[in-house]
């Protein structure tokens, strides 16, 4: 089987503290010398990776986290109200429909006729709206691509 993890000792070169055996091994092993080079590079590179002085203060982060938690709680609390509004609207429309179906007065008949004629042209409106949306998206996509 092909060895894909290299020399066993190479993984031990992770700190500046070395025992004599490891030092002796590194001196005679090309793989470990390579590992040593990488270790030295990484140490030097890390030493040059000083962060800026103006990192955010921990107090500010705690404050921001608390505000975000409160916002999330508020959102969770409002969510049932939104679904209840949807349910109420559906119930209202269903009741009106049921009422129209049962009542037979001239005004109701006119309303019914208007509704039915609107419903008959509804598919056309839907097709038109969908086409408009598709055209808008396609236009936006090509505009975005052209800008790139």
């Amino acid at each position: 089987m092909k060895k894909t993890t290299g020399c066993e000792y190479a993984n031990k070169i992770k700190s500046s503290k070395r025992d004599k055996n490891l030092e002796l091994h590194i001196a005679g092993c090309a793989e470990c010398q390579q590992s040593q080079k990488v270790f030295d590079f990484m140490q030097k590179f890390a030493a040059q990776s000083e962060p800026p002085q103006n990192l955010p203060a921990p107090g500010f982060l705690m404050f921001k986290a608390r505000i975000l938690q409160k916002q999330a709680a508020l959102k969770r609390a409002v969510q049932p109200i939104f679904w209840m509004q949807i349910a109420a609207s559906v119930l209202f429309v269903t009741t009106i429909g049921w009422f129209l179906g049962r009542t037979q007065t001239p005004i109701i008949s006119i309303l019914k006729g208007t509704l039915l004629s609107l419903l008959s042209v509804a598919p056309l409106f839907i097709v038109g709206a969908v086409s408009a949306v598709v055209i808008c998206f396609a236009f936006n996509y090509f505009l975005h691509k052209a800008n790139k």
Partner: protein
Amino acid sequence: MDETIFEEIYEQTARPLWAYVSRISGNPTAADDILQETYLRFLNSPPKQIDLKEAKPYLYKIATNLARDRFRKLKREGKQENILPEKCEMTIENFGEELEMTQVFSRLKEQERALLWLAYVEGYEHREIAGILRLNSMSVRVLLFRARRRLAQFLESEKR
């Protein structure tokens, strides 16, 4: 979470975490945003046991995921990362060397950068790296070997 505990964790981890994110993402400005988001997520859902030993790898895990998401987003949008060391503390004397090192390191894949940093700068064991990068422990061994070899090759080619 208790403010003093968080402050202690922050003082111990913020600077090395910033350096890690800055180097794996290759963008110090992005590192600022990722660092802030990391601590906000940490405060929002802290680990079961809140001490430095538990918190540090957890923070690295969050930061790695955020950096990965950002990297994928940039890739989707076809944008490239700015690799210039713009915000690190440096003098004119070490600017050239710093830039050279940054360029060599940026030739590695994002996962390789993370692996090398966690192993050689943070000194994490394979098992811990596997936890942070969501990899198998044995895979870490192989991937670290490959990353090491690639970096050594780049260093050799830079020398010539």
